[in-house]
């Protein structure tokens, strides 16, 4: 019975994830696209929870659905209706090539998964209850992955400064 419930939750989250993903790509108005992306991120957080990544699920909701999407919505509100643009211009050849490229990625991954399905993907490792908890993640970040942790902070600092510099209004701006 517990298994069945997990499948149901997985199915709802996966369907919400894929449906809102299609909505992000196909909406004409960027505002609705951004709202659909919030749904996408929330259902991804549910999938993370099913994969025993509690801390990442929380970070996903806080960082993405909270901070990043608020930034997006502010910019969309600031730019207003101007931001609307139709589907790709250019030749139908380019459009077809784009669709074939996306389909090729999908087919490749599915074929590789199909080949590995029987043996490698069968039995997930046994993990303790604290797998993916903030404590374990924090310990790894401050021991094995200290360099990655420090570099991440520098990347964020540079990006913040870059965002400010790009948004700055100068006195003599070339028209």
């Amino acid at each position: 019975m517990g298994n069945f419930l997990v499948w149901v939750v997985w199915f709802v989250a996966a369907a919400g994830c894929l449906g809102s993903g299609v909505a992000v790509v196909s909406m004409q108005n960027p505002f609705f696209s951004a709202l659909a992306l919030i749904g996408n991120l929330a259902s991804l957080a549910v999938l993370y929870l099913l994969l025993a990544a509690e801390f990442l699920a929380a970070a996903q909701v806080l960082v993405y659905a909270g901070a990043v999407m608020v930034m997006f919505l502010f910019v969309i509100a600031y730019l207003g209706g101007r931001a609307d643009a139709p589907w790709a211009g250019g030749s139908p050849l380019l459009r077809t090539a784009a669709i074939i490229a996306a389909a090729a990625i999908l087919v490749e991954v599915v074929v590789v998964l199909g080949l590995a399905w029987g043996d490698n993907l069968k039995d997930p490792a046994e993990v303790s209850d604290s797998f993916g908890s903030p404590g374990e993640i924090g310990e790894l970040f401050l021991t094995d992955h200290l360099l990655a942790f420090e570099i991440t902070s520098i990347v964020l600092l540079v990006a913040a400064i870059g965002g400010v510099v790009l948004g700055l209004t100068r006195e003599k701006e070339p028209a």
Partner: protein
Amino acid sequence: MSGPGVGWYLIVAAILFATGALGVLLRRSPLIVLLSLEIMLNAGNLALIAFSRQIGELDGQIFALAVMAVAAGEVAVGLGLIVAMARRGVALDVDQASALRG
């Protein structure tokens, strides 16, 4: 692990990645291109976390956190660029922003 195996999560990640790639390649509004990029990054994150669960090591989750931070930085810079484009009267259309085309 009760419930769906890791392969099912990977299939969701693959479909999500293809959807995002379609958005990046087909849409013309830079805002929607950025949103589609977020979908692609999140599909990668989902695959990382699924494999991390499969092999029982937390390194994949650490990598996913780093990806999340890079994505936040990318959004800050990308949105800054879009606002700068709008302010200078450049059309918000990735097909028309072709001054650097080789």
